[in-house]
């Protein structure tokens, strides 16, 4: 049995330029799947005008898992969406008509297909779920670029609540830096956990460190001048020593 996509596999399509994605898929897909993909992309690229009831490429999008294997489905679906030049109306329709897997693929496609904030409602929809596969995809590069500060902070907190590794949060260090409101929310959450006698997720301290106004040591290149960390709420938090022992990320 092959394993299901790891979180890393699941987030890569949002971070990889589509042409690279295509080349890498072509080298990994079985011959029949590669042929199917080529035809699906062709269908998507040539579909134009009115369709009854939906364009044919939407069926290709739905069946990508069984045609190419679940490990490759996210990348395949991103490529189909790009080939179809899916606009906001199409993205919104296939998201709402989609299975959780298809919705995840739409989220991965957003940074490649949508320039402005018009797809934020789709990200917000995914962030309202408790499905960690959707949450992980929702906090990708598009969210980093377009989410308001309030929504983004709640997204980060939700990751901590649902054990989505904060490594999934795109551009975390840049957006967290100097965010005193996020630091306050994290501190309150840590206090709440400690008061209940529960371990504080290790990821919480990582994000908290990143909220310092000066670049924190972890995510920055070595060329940055190392500065003495400022006085920070992390030092005052209770229960810092009781790390979550079972912070193994769910891999679905």
């Amino acid at each position, binding site marked *: *049995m*092959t*394993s*299901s996509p790891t979180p890393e596999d699941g987030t890569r399509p949002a971070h990889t330029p589509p042409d690279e994605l295509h080349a890498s898929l072509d080298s990994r897909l079985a011959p029949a799947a590669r042929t199917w993909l080529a035809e699906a992309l062709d269908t998507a690229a040539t579909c134009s005008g009115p369709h009854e*009831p*939906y364009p044919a490429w939407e*069926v290709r999008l*739905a*069946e*990508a*898992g*069984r045609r190419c294997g*679940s490990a490759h*489905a996210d990348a395949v679906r991103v490529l189909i969406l790009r080939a179809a030049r899916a606009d906001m109306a199409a993205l919104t329709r296939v998201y709402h*008509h989609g*299975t*959780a*897997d298809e*919705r995840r693929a739409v989220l991965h496609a957003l940074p490649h297909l949508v320039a402005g904030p018009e797809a934020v409602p789709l990200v917000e929809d995914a962030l309202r*779920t*408790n*499905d*960690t*596969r959707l*949450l992980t995809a929702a906090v990708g590069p598009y969210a980093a670029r377009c989410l308001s500060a309030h929504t983004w902070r709640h997204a980060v907190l939700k990751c*901590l*609540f*649902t*054990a989505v590794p904060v490594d999934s949060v795109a551009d975390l260090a840049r957006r967290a830096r100097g965010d005193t409101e996020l630091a306050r929310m994290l501190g309150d959450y840590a206090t709440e956990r400690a008061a209940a006698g*529960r*371990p504080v*997720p290790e990821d919480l301290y990582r994000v908290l460190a990143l909220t310092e106004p000066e670049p924190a040591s972890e995510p920055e290149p070595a060329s940055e001048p190392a500065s003495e960390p400022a006085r920070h709420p992390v030092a005052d938090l209770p229960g810092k020593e009781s790390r*979550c022992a*079972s*912070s*193994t990320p*769910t*891999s*679905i």
Partner: protein
Amino acid sequence: MRIFDPHIHMTSRTTDDYEAMHAAGVRAVVEPAFWLGQPRTSPASFLDYFDSLLGWEPFRAAQYGIAHHCTLALNPKEANDPRCVPVLDELPRYLVKDQVVAVGEIGYDSMTPAEDIALATQLQLAADHALPALVHTPHRDKLAGLRRTLDVVRESALPPERVLIDHLNEPTVKEAKTSGCWLGFSVYPDTKMDEKRMVAILRAHGPERVLVNSAADWGRSDPLKTRRVGDLMLAEGFTEDDADRVLWRNPVEFYGLSGRLNLDVTVTEATHEGNSVLRGGG
């Protein structure tokens, strides 16, 4: 003992059930769309339900290391409510989804003309989408219901080897077997079949094309009945291979006819502190 429950309504069950099922050997389930107990009044509530069977429920199942697929349909009971029937027009866009492994559960409830139409229409939808069909037999007037069901199946575009006739019992098993369809048995605490009678049927009719399910739902039912049948089979002289055939290979073969069965599931840590299912509304 590896178990595939080919008919169970997990939407109505708790995470305790998932945990107990995994401990009992259940590694795969198929959840047929059905009546929720409270009648629906519009297609929209079907669509939310279908979305849940393709989204949240497989996610919940995966948290417990169980592969989840579904069958979708307008159930026979609600086929009688004209407010619900338009969901038939929405079914085609759902029947192309990766995790849909059959059209179902369809069949008869009260054997009305509206049920005739819904059954025939959905058997055709199954044929159009290269899917098998899960057809249940009615609780009341079961033998007559079976005969009428088999007539409609014979007139359909779907060959019998792509049809699973469910909720069978002693009076209906012989005719169902002669039809060439797959044979489903639901083992319940006090209605339908029990495990002793199930094992007797297996002895009399053999394990070929037989599937055993718990059909567990919101009523009095037990999601571990599949395991009970397996245990009793072994206790009464059936081989491990017989039990594996009935409880795993037969359902894999039947739903595998869809070409969409994917039994790979990453076993996740169900007791994880941060588990989003355990965290409920978090």
